[in-house]
């Protein structure tokens, strides 16, 4: 074992003079850094701030007595995500083990005395698992996934709205924003991508103009513009800041979705359209049943990457005064009593973003291999 390690390190770490130099500087430096971080984590850091302010981090200033609404929303999201993942992954025992690990981590974080939250977390995970298992076992359910997604969004809005949409915040807001944006921008982006190849040049120009404009301005500006324009354009609705933010995000990311879908459309050989035409199919049927499914197969991996983009840019909604996950962390630090816990809070934020982000990347990669296998 040790002999093998020595051999391996001689080949890979100390093979050439430059390698030796690199290894001798990088490895000790890295070890020192790891030691410092670990020492701080275990000794200096006072972590009790995280369980104490977990509610703020998760749901922001959403009233505590209404927290059940947030739980319902989280469970709907869990079912939806579970179902979406179930399309790609067959549910196995080791996945169940992984979920139990997550549950254990959450309970460790919240403290064992908080039984209600532990139970709610457990049932959320159970819902996630059963959504995943149901759809991977009954393939017929997959057809219902997109409509179910829209119904789920409406249900979430219905549950979360009564206390006032202005109160939404925390990680839940980040997730909701990501979810709404990625689900709604998909059909909009698909329509834009088809519009860009339309036979009618006016249609082509409008779609191309929209896509190019959105892609050449910063997201933060689009969001801000929509925020200040909405009350002027639609004063009778009195849309909440959250909804205006979601509209801004959706309008912006639809252009990117359109580009990913367009690259997928270009990957479908022209002969496919010709074959469908020779069968007398209408252009609408050809696009819907022959071209789009093959295009999406190519576009799905970048589209999942797009979801990660949306999640990571969600903190920008602070510009219109919303309290997303990152902003909720800063809000806790604004409390003078917690002013000296900056590193603890930011470390938690970093870790959470990193975990969610790498989860999405992992799914995207698995999806890619899954689709490559399907494309026999």
């Amino acid at each position, binding site marked *: 074992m040790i002999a093998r390690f020595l051999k391996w390190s001689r080949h890979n770490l100390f093979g050439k003079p430059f390698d030796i130099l690199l290894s001798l500087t990088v490895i000790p430096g890295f070890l020192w850094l790891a030691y410092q971080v670990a020492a701080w984590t275990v000794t200096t850091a006072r972590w009790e701030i995280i369980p104490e302010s977990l509610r703020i981090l998760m749901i922001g200033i959403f009233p505590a007595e209404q927290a059940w609404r947030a739980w319902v929303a989280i469970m709907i999201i869990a079912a939806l995500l579970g179902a979406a993942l179930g399309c790609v992954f067959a549910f196995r025992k080791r996945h169940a083990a992984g979920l139990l690990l997550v549950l254990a981590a959450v309970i460790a974080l919240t403290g064992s005395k908080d039984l209600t939250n532990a139970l709610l977390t457990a049932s959320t995970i159970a819902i996630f698992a059963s959504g995943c298992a149901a759809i991977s076992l009954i393939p017929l359910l997959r057809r219902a996934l997109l409509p179910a997604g829209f119904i789920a969004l409406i249900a979430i809005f219905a549950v979360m709205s009564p206390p006032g949409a202005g109160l939404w915040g925390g990680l839940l807001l980040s997730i909701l924003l990501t979810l709404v944006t990625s689900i709604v921008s998909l059909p909009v982006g698909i329509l834009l991508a088809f519009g860009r190849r339309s036979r009618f040049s006016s249609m082509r120009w409008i779609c191309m103009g929209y896509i190019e404009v959105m892609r050449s301005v910063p997201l933060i500006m689009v969001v801000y513009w929509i925020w200040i324009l909405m009350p002027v354009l639609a004063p009778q609705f009195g849309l909440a800041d959250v909804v205006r933010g979601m509209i801004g995000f959706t309008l912006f990311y639809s252009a990117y979705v359109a580009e990913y879908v367009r690259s997928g459309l270009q990957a479908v*050989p022209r*002969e*496919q359209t*010709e*074959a*469908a*035409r*020779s*069968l*007398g*199919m*209408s*252009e609408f*049927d050809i696009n819907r*049943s*022959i071209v789009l*499914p*093959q295009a999406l*197969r190519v576009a799905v991996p970048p589209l999942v990457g797009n979801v990660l983009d949306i999640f990571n840019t969600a903190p920008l909604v602070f510009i219109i005064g919303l309290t997303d996950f990152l902003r909720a962390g800063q809000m806790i630090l604004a409390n003078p009593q917690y002013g000296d816990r900056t590193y603890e809070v930011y470390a938690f934020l970093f870790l959470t973003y990193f975990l969610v982000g790498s989860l999405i990347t992992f799914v995207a990669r698995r999806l890619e291999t899954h689709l490559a296998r399907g*494309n*026999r």
Partner: protein
Amino acid sequence: MNAIIEMKNLNKFYGSHHVLKDIDLSVSRGEVVVVVGASGSGKSTLIRCVNGLEMYQNGSLLVDGYPMPVEEDRRLGGERELAAIRKGVGMVFQQFNLFPHKTVVENITIAPMRVHRKTRREAEATALKLLERVGLEAHAHKYPGQLSGGQQQRVAIARSLAMEPHLMLFDEPTSALDPEMIGEVLDVMRELAADGMTMMIVTHEMGFAREVADRIVYIDQGSILEIGKPDAFFDNPENDRARSFLARVLKH
């Protein structure tokens, strides 16, 4: 009205390149017409004009009684008229062009269900019957990528037949196949011809052409140089270029 295809003075250009020159050709119902010629002579373009996959610039083309609009008129629309013509005309491509994301049965049933509004059950019953006819009923639920080239091409033929066409177009159906698979596709086409299907075929299989064709059309550089009975054409071509073409292809 016995002719199913009637071309009069048909001309096609790619930009300034004159691809089809004053084509006059009529095909009767029940007839098997084989188009031969060197590559680049315009034979594929000719056959693709018949179901409107290629547009032509002037002249006239009647398919099954419907006039096929010239390019200028198609710019203004007419997709629906075109779809009406295509319903009655089947086409088989060199590269099969099956839909890779659909199973064999789905490939065959999709057009009848969408275009003729057949129920799934009806369409699947027809599909299985057609698969039996081309000898592939065992592969009904596979994906095209799991089949050999010859099998894919037979599925493609079944897919076209599912629309109950009055006319079948074959654009070099065996050119992309390994030699040992050509026979199985030609057998299916032979049977179709024997059943009285009207067929227009572009092919390099001269033996097959001679056997099934009622008439051979020889085309070179966009013009029809000779139309004749197969025996007369192969044994004693009138045109010089046809003679040298045959000398080249029949040598092997």
